[in-house]
């Protein structure tokens, strides 16, 4: 079985982001970049399927500037077999990414595409669902558990009221939620080995995809800040304030 996993290069989740003073975006110069945490879970799920013998070819895909090769290398060090970078300087929005992925799926014919449910930069939570729509495949979003058997993917999903299990005809698109697995750290020998693994570099033109953004960002601003309030000395004082000052209980 062949599986494609997607990895996005984003500002590290520990970094406190700064809005640019001209309100055109968020400062990314000299900021630590990492693999989107949900994509680490996607890679881990693919690697586990590979270790279980279910998958023989595990491909990590990233899109964006040349530096995304680093993110692919991380995925290769975790256990992916090879990488594909779709190189572009354009702001690649979810619909464009889904179209590029569809073109790659048509070249590679994987049985499963596993994506993070959401990237922690634009917080869109769209690409997996869009890819599934474009391919006419089913989608197992926000996956908590994935079981492959008899040409079907049984996916237990995190939903607002609890968990829901659906059975999807393969091929299928899966997006990962937090509890699906705990991603591994790449070992030093595996990091060294990953340097020798192949990364193909393609362009949107080669894939025949128009990636023109549909959304224009007019401005990016800081949200209004909450001011720290008062410290209270006791539970009794707290309840008194909530009853008589804030009047919320």
């Amino acid at each position, binding site marked *: 079985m062949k599986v494609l996993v997607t990895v996005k290069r984003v*500002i590290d989740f520990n970094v*406190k*982001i700064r809005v640019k003073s001209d309100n055109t975006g*968020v400062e990314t110069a000299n900021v630590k970049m990492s693999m989107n945490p949900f994509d680490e879970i996607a890679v881990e799920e693919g690697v586990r399927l590979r270790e279980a013998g279910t998958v023989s070819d595990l491909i990590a895909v990233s899109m964006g500037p040349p530096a995304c090769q680093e993110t692919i290398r991380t995925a290769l060090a975790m256990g992916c077999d090879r990488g594909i970078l779709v190189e572009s300087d354009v702001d690649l*929005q*979810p*619909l464009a990414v*889904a179209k590029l992925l569809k073109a790659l799926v048509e070249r590679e014919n994987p049985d499963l595409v596993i994506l993070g*449910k*959401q990237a*922690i930069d634009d*917080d*869109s*939570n*769209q690409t997996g*669902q*869009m890819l*599934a*729509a*474009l391919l006419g*495949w*089913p*989608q197992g979003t*926000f996956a908590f558990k994935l079981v492959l058997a008899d040409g079907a993917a049984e996916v237990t*999903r*995190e*939903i*607002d*009221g*609890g*968990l*829901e*299990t*659906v*059975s*999807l*005809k393969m091929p299928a698109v899966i997006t990962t939620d937090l*509890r699906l697995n705990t991603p591994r750290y790449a070992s030093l020998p595996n990091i060294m080995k990953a340097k020798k693994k192949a990364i193909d570099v393609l362009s949107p033109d080669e894939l025949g995809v128009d990636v023109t953004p*549909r*959304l224009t*960002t*007019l*401005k*990016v*601003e*800081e*949200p209004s800040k*909450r001011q*720290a*309030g*008062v*410290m209270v000395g006791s*539970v*009794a004082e*707290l*309840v008194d304030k*909530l*009853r008589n000052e*804030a009047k*919320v209980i």
Partner: protein
Amino acid sequence: MGILVVAEHDNDALKAATLNTVAAGGELGEVSVLVAGADCRAVAEAAARVAGVANVLLADAEIYAHPLAESLAPLVAGLASAYSHLLAPAATFGKNLMPRVAALLDVAQISDVIGIEGADTFVRPIYAGNALATVRSADAIKVITVRGTAFDAAAPDGGNAAIEDIPAAEDPGLSRFVGHELTKSERPELTSARVVISGGRGMQSGEKFALLEEIADKLGGAVGASRAAVDAGFVPNDYQVGQTGKVVAPDLYVAVGISGAIQHLAGMKDSKVIVAINKDEDAPIFQIADYGLVADLFKALPELSAELDKQR
């Protein structure tokens, strides 16, 4: 061109966030509501009574008994040409469905909208709400998920819309519902509760969440959790408040044993009054709390429970 709101419901009742989504739609134009389900006429009747709803489309068919995106997306996309905007609540239902609808229509989707500046211009949070982006869509049809806490709910009564039965779309047969395990609770829904009390890693175990439940019940509130508490296995994921969980904005939010990572703040910082109880006086949560109490939560929670019984 009207606005189509896709109702979130459980075949018995509308989910509360649908009312906020109707209100957001009302800022854009005349609102129609689509109710797709099975044996769900009661939901359509409830939607028809919502203030500001001009008409209700009811697709009542067995294939919609469970909200599978594979079945619903062709139905919604098939209706789209009569509307300028398609809206759904930004809950797991809408987040699963609307990007699929948008891709079928070859348009962008705009997630988690918190402000409407015009027919094509919307405000949405990025980077866990640490920045707000104003975006303009170039597409003919705007497909949007709405953050419920950013819009007041439409009144559930006062409307008198007509209900129009519409046929189901062809079922692509790609997916099948197998089962679900829903958290049973007598407490209000986390996203619409007036009071939310959440626990973090400081709670130390799932059993200790009973301390929070006791207080939630005295205040008529819901119980939430930080990602750390979910990761530690104390409570199920549907308790999670934060960037990747639920977004809440109650009148009162009580954070207990939660340090205040930005990912958690993203889910609760629009609450009206925030209380933090933590034994670490340097915890970042105190920087955004209206009332802070440095205390051992295992002492403070029983005290709080007892105090709430007094002077009623």
